[in-house]
């Protein structure tokens, strides 16, 4: 697979603070990679280094095979945090401005990207009248203008309403399916889980996990299973199961129990409940989510930061 992004030992220091600490990874052609981490983990700094907005203290990065972004800029689209536009220009004129800067982007393409992000019909309105979500979508439209081979998106769903989040998610998904390589930073884990095939988790400037979502989740599961239970008598169910040494942990809300146990112990649950005469309405195995993975990785990092190496 051709590497679209290659990062090797990339480091950024601001005085004594090391924002990004010798990180290395590659992103292959056509991959949709989620770049995750808590606030201040170094996500935006990494993205800014990739896009030539700040200079790395040390290390190397190549985008589309080029060390200097200037040689690849016409094939890279980006949205960094909240995109900036001239408020006194209309959405269409802001895109025209960007199209002029890119060069070789015609008027037809401007309307295509406006349609792509659902802003057709509002293109003549000044950006000052746009909602946060509309600006975000305009940012995505601008990033799409040059028909990029690589899209770098930093928190593209920031400030969007639920409809906007779904629209952006679908757009990113469709773009990923069309072969565009996407490097996506977001704090909305469920969103990343739905669009990304691979995740890189960064914490305190170091990479804590890097792999396909499926692999990382199965590694996290490690022979464990998550079961969801809805029964006629939740109190008694909880009482019975908590007495079992193999039921590792469980949480409950008003309507259900969530039980984590070894995969081979799943078959032990039903006989106990049936034997006690408890009606079972639901007994379902749930998958570990990206959130479980993320929290597990980041919390592990908090507890054991000094001992951690680069990659998980």
């Amino acid at each position: 697979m051709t590497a679209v992004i290659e990062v090797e030992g990339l480091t950024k220091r601001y005085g004594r603070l090391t924002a990004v600490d010798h990180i290395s990874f590659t992103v292959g052609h056509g991959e949709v990679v989620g770049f995750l981490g808590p606030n201040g983990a170094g996500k935006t700094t990494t993205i800014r280094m990739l896009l030539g907005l700040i200079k790395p203290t040390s290390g190397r990065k190549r985008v589309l095979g080029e060390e200097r972004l200037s040689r690849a800029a016409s094939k890279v689209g980006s949205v960094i945090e909240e995109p900036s536009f001239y408020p006194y220009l209309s959405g269409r004129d802001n895109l025209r401005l960007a199209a002029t800067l890119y060069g070789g982007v015609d008027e037809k393409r401007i309307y295509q990207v406006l349609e792509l992000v659902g802003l057709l019909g509002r293109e003549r309105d000044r950006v000052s009248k746009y909602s946060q979500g509309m600006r975000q979508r305009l940012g995505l439209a601008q990033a799409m203008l040059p028909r990029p081979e690589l899209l770098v998106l930093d928190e593209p769903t920031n400030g969007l309403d639920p409809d906007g989040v779904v629209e952006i998610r679908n757009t990113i998904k469709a773009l990923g399916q069309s072969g565009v390589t996407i490097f996506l930073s977001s704090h909305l884990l469920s969103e990343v889980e739905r669009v990304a095939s691979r995740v890189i988790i960064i914490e305190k400037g170091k990479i804590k996990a890097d792999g396909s979502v499926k692999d990382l989740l199965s590694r996290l599961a490690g022979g464990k299973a998550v079961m969801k239970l809805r029964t006629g008598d939740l109190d008694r169910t909880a009482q019975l199961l908590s007495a079992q040494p193999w039921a590792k942990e469980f949480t409950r809300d008003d309507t259900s129990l969530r039980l984590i146990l070894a995969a081979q112990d799943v078959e032990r649950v039903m006989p106990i409940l049936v034997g006690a005469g408890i009606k079972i309405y639901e007994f379902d195995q749930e998958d570990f989510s990206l959130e479980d993975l993320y929290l597990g990785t980041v919390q592990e990092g908090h507890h054991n930061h000094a001992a951690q190496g680069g990659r998980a």
Partner: protein
Amino acid sequence: MTAGVETLSQVAVARTRVPAIWRVVRAEFLKALRKRRTWFLVILYFIIGPLLQVLLRGTRALDGVALASNNLNGILGNLWVRLAVLLVVTMVFIEDRPARMWKSVLPIVPWRSQLLFGKVLAGFLLLGVLMLGSGLSSYLVGELVDALTPGQVRFSVRTSLVSLLTAYAGQWAGSIGYLGLCFLGGWLITSPLVAVLILYLLPGLLEQGVNSGLGWYVGRFKPEGFDQVAETIKGLLLTPNMEVGRYLVRISGTNWSAAGHALLVSAGYAVICLGLLWLLFRRADIHN
């Protein structure tokens, strides 16, 4: 939405080989045409300014002989020029900082020097358009008022249109020093409002400061033969050298030497300020 995505698989449009600096200039002109401030400047410099000069300043002619241009005195004065330069530079450069435009524009135009000097060139060209229009408008307004006011008193400069435009062209060229100073100040001062205020007042304040300093020095030490040095220092100040146009159209004849000196001083300021800005811009990590 899917239809739009499908277009991605189409063959990419062949990119034109237009240098980035020209793409930046074109983009800045596109921006300027849609900015209200541009039209405010156009109305101010093309209509209100020339009219005010003619109507309020009275005649500069006696017995049918023009003594000086109403229009040149006003529009080419450094206060008017400073206002124009400052508003243009604010539009193409100073406003971009708080609007956090760099992070949007730099990935598109990663050639920092071309982006920076594209903006400088755009500012200078916009100023040229403003000056050219202002010159034409001054001529027309003068002629119009002359035609409407019979008698010996003439309001217009009664020189050829060419010499009037030469004066404006000279003034345009002479504004490059202040343009450079505004770009540098706009980079160094983060707040646009503070930048505009300081940059508008700075040349005059510096001039006053230098004059006061020289006066104090002469008064305190009474140095012999210092007058020449003082004159040379005063001759290198920005403000008096901004009025190149006035040296080019004079009743006593064009003062090419003074105009050349003013242009050289202005160019010197431009080289120093823009050079310094270029170094700062290249070294900077663009955080905002």
